[in-house]
């Protein structure tokens, strides 16, 4: 299978973020650092089983990575690289040119007075 392009990577991120449980898990890993499914079950209103399932899927998608360790003691870590790809796509949507270009026209028109 060829490696996914930037859009496919970003899509994985956006799909994960669209789900409240996965969003909560990613947020917990971002703010608190690497954690096991058991750690996360203590902190989040989600069952350990569900968390383990989400972590497995997100590891396959490359959004988190499992650190080597015994089963049940496996710690998951957030991977920032796919997030940076997604952030780049958002950058184009977040850039506002209509406001400044409107202001440019207004500024030059005001100069006529």
């Amino acid at each position, binding site marked *: 299978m060829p490696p996914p392009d930037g859009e496919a990577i970003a899509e994985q991120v956006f799909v994960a973020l669209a789900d409240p449980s996965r969003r909560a898990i990613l947020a917990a890993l971002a703010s608190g650092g690497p954690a096991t499914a058991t750690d996360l079950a203590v902190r989040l209103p989600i069952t350990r089983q569900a968390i383990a399932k989400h972590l497995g899927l997100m590891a396959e998608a490359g959004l988190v*990575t499992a650190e080597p360790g015994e089963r049940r003691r496996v710690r998951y870590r957030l991977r920032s690289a796919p997030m940076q790809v997604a952030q780049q796509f958002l950058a184009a949507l977040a850039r506002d040119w209509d406001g400044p270009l409107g202001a*440019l026209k207004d500024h030059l028109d005001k100069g006529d007075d």
Partner: protein
Amino acid sequence: MAFPDRIERTVEIAHPPARVWAALTTAEGLSAWFGQQAGIDLRPGGSAWMKWDSGHTAYMRVERVEEPAVFGFTWHIFGLPEDDPRRTYVEFTLEPAGAGTRLTMVESGFSQLSEDAFRTAYDGNANGWVSELDELVGYLDAAA
């Protein structure tokens, strides 16, 4: 391609290119409509900046200066970390249109991504932080 690499806008302005050029390429002009404060060293390779009352500052590098037709600069991609090396290129083209100016703005490079960045995003160097922290620990241990 669902995600845009470039943003393009064309506006008709009822003033001649020389007036528009001054608004785009001088500190006085830029601070009147774009930033709240601005500075510019108008030559290829020169630096420019704009500052907003919100506290945000944008740093630009002037790339093309062809008065009064083409003005181009690169800047940091808004929203990416400060140390991210990726930049977008903004080019203003001014064409006379009757007594006024047709101004085209193209900002490109949003979907630029080096092979390295792809590889990192896909395979990942998940151990990046681990090894950096290990280096820090090693450094501190050595210094102790």
